[in-house]
């Protein structure tokens, strides 16, 4: 509970607070008709008031559920705040949710009212209305295609707001009074989990939890008030609820909305957003765009860009490694910045971006470094809808291997936050506003708790410094060694595949083994060129894979990844496979996933050689040629050892 009883306790109370203290400041912007239309905090409050009175006119009660189905736009925010103003809770669905998903949520959350953006969404909801007894109202705000729809519970935006007028005339203060009845422990949202494991579950999210998380994000990032933010992450994600909706209110920020979902890139550039959040795939596609545009440019311009990025890499590699920057790089950086790096940032809309996030999955270090060279530092952020924000990269440096620094700051909300690692390697948390449970599923909620501790189910490790965490895998996907140590094959393989020299890799280790080993399928093309440059002669792939120089290079790539691993989970031995893994021979699936059992059996003698600590071994593998003939590949395979890291290196 907040110590200061005067500070707002719910989101709608914050809205009133802003409308009183920042009434003329721009709260939201929406690009319509090619122009950014502005809404002040007073405008937003008036819109929310009309909607709230409309909801009351339709008989929506405190603690009932209102569902939102729309792309991000101001009306979506207004509808959420209006529902919360009258004490109702909100469920936001993905705009592309299927009818079955909508059906499930309407039933599970006992929805009474739906805000649907357009015909597409209305068409999903209307057939379901008769199936859900409590559902009585659907409101749309994009009339396209809906001109001839008639239903007693279906309202256009303007008609719905018109419902408010009689109440506004009769009881002018009702809206403010309803908001002041709100308490921080009221349920603000149900955030539905993706349901990859079983049915989706609605995570109960109170106003206190939203405010607590937004406060922590604001504190760790030191965002200035009035900061520019573009809202495009779906509201069904906790991230957007914490940042766009809640932090936007309490900082306050200027939250903008693009004209169409496919106009986000243009909108980011026009607004020069200070805070940008993309998933790894989006960062990759931005990087790919830079490369693609460069291919169209004349050769001299390509060389200038390459040079600028090279200087940027040298100058800013400090953020990645501890390499020292040479003096001439310091001298050239301003020139490179003016000629190449700044225009690149401008083209990508990152000119003013100070706080730039990625999350959800690992970003390749190359992508991290490319943006770092441009002067844009990507920060990882990690959290879960049940417990809130857990880690985020803070300060001036971000290590791409970790998911960031723990963000368990002391605050006025609840007990101090604490974390610990369970014996399984799983991360457990307590304190703060905590986990309030799943809606209507007490037994599922109980499964997540270990006494007072909340189990995230994510296996993590500690990074190079105490306060940073490394994400490995879900606990149930972790593998176990003889000594009881756990490790994630997936984690190690993904990291090793980021190396340009390694095409495929399979990590081996199970409860009968004492250490972790790897079967490496080197990238023949890359190593072929590398060998030419180094003056290393070779004949076939088999020959190339066993050259000592190449074994050394692979060993150093593995040693890099080993640094991020706990001692017991480090790779000790590896072999370079004498042939490439091939889907035609059943070693990979058609989507290039490893067929572990088959590979383990086929290359069993190599695995035994590694665990027996032999220097080399001979192997015979039956192979099938493309023309149908079969043959036998005989090769001597060397076993590579990874030098143990000293403590300093760690």
């Amino acid at each position, binding site marked *: 509970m907040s110590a200061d009883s005067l500070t707002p306790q719910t989101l709608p109370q914050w809205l009133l607070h802003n409308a009183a203290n920042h009434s003329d400041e721009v709260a939201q912007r929406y690009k*319509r*008709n*090619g122009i950014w239309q502005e809404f002040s905090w007073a405008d937003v409050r008036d819109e929310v008031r009309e909607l709230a009175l409309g909801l009351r006119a339709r008989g929506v009660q405190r603690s009932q559920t209102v569902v939102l189905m729309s792309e991000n736009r101001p009306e979506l925010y207004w509808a959420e705040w209006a529902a919360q103003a009258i004490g109702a809770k909100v469920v936001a669905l993905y705009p592309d949710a299927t009818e079955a998903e909508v059906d499930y949520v309407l039933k599970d959350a006992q929805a009474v009212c739906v805000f649907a953006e357009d015909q597409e969404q209305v068409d999903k909801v209307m057939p379901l209305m008769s199936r859900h007894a409590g559902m009585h109202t659907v409101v749309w705000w994009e*009339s*396209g*295609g809906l*001109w*001839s729809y008639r239903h007693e519970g279906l309202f256009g935006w303007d008609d719905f707001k018109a419902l408010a007028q009689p109440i506004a005339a009769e009881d002018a203060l009702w809206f403010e009074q309803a908001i002041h009845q709100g308490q921080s422990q009221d349920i603000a949202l149900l955030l539905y989990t993706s349901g990859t494991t079983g049915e989706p579950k609605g995570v109960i999210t109170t106003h206190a939890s939203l405010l607590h998380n937004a406060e922590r994000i604001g504190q760790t990032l030191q965002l200035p008030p009035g900061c520019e933010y573009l809202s495009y992450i779906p509201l069904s994600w906790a991230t957007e609820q914490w940042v766009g909706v809640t932090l936007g209110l309490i900082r306050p920020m200027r939250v903008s909305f693009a*004209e*169409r979902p*496919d*106009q986000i890139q243009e909108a980011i550039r026009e607004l020069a957003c200070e805070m940008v959040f993309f998933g790894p795939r989006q960062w990759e596609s931005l990087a790919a765009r830079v490369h693609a545009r460069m291919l169209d440019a004349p050769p001299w311009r390509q060389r200038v860009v390459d040079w600028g990025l090279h200087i940027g890499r040298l100058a800013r590699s400090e953020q990645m490694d501890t390499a020292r920057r040479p003096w001439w790089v310091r001298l050239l950086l301003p020139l490179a910045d003016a000629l190449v790096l700044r225009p690149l940032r401008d083209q990508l809309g990152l000119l003013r971006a100070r706080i730039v996030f990625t999350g959800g999955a690992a970003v390749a270090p190359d992508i991290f470094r490319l943006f770092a060279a441009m002067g844009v530092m990507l920060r990882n952020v990690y959290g879960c809808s049940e417990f809130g924000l857990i880690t985020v990269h803070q300060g001036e440096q971000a290590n791409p291997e970790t998911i960031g620094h723990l963000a368990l700051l002391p605050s006025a909300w609840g007990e101090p936050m604490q974390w610990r690692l369970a014996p399984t390697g799983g991360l457990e948390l307590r304190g703060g506003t905590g986990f309030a449970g799943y809606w209507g599923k007490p037994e599922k909620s109980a499964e997540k708790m270990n006494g007072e501790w909340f189990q995230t189910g994510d296996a993590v490790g500690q990074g190079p410094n105490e306060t940073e965490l490394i994400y490995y895998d879900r606990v149930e996907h972790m593998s176990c060694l003889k000594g009881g140590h756990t490790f994630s094959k997936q984690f190690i393989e993904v990291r090793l595949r980021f190396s340009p020299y390694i095409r495929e890799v399979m990590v081996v280790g199970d409860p009968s083994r004492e250490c972790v080993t790897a079967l490496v399928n080197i990238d023949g093309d890359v190593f072929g060129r590398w060998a030419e440059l180094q003056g290393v002669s070779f004949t076939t792939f088999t020959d190339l894979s066993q050259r000592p120089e190449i074994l050394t290079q692979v060993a150093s790539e593995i040693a890099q990844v080993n640094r991020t691993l706990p001692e017991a989970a480090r790779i000790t031995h590896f072999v370079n496979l004498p042939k490439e893994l091939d889907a035609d021979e059943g070693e990979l699936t058609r989507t290039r996933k490893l067929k572990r059992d088959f590979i383990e059996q086929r290359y069993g003698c190599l695995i035994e050689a590694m665990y027996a600590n032999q220097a080399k071994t001979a192997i015979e593998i039956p192979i099938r040629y493309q023309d149908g003939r079969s043959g036998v590949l005989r090769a001597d395979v060397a076993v590579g050892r990874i030098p143990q890291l000293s403590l300093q290196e760690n």
Partner: protein
Amino acid sequence: MTQAQQHLPMLEARDITLKFGGVTALANISIDIGHQELVALIGPNGAGKSSLLNVLSGFYRPSEGSVRFEGKNIGRWPVHLVAQAGLARTFQGTHLLPHMSVLDNIMVGRYMHMKSSLTTAFFYYPFAHREELAHRAVAEEILSFLELEHLRHHPVGTLGYGMRKRVDLGRALAMEPRMLLLDEPMAGMNVEEKEDLARFILDIRESRQIPVVLVEHDMGVVMDIADRVIVLNFGRKIADASPAVVQQDQQVIAAYLGVHA
């Protein structure tokens, strides 16, 4: 509009005959188009579909017969007056300005409604400024209706064929017509583009409540969306009925399949 006018057809063409020298392109054709009707004009190649559309929109003068639009005999009016009367059309292929942006092309459709002269526009008088804003607002509405917002500033010449046809339609809509004539709007489109355009045509009829006359070859589209189908063959009208009836008509089948009826 009075009650009586509501019952009259909006457009009446009576006994239209069109001759080019010795060739009779259209012979004694009479058609009515009612309020809010979606009428398809079909027929084999050379049947006279485009000629009839050109007569209705004033591009050709009929050799005989009359065209009445909302009670006015427009049969011999010049094209620009027909357009001002509220009849807008699109062309086979596209007649757009390729180097101008999508927005500017649609603004061209507003020309008819603009009052400021070259001088007042050049010196940007306050009223010219206000007028520009009002027209831009209408153009933006059309952009959003046709889902072209993201291409607003793209030159039309860089767009694909399907998109250009959509811009063409947008320009016709910008005239705020009371009746829309579309000449083969879907020719050369793929299935997805056709579906989009069919949706837009239905939406136009529904949101603006105006009649739409459409020359089209794609029978699937015609049968799906038209209220009424008029079939021409060698300059004569051989059928004028609902899609279901027309599909069963022996004369129509003969005209399309070349069988002697």
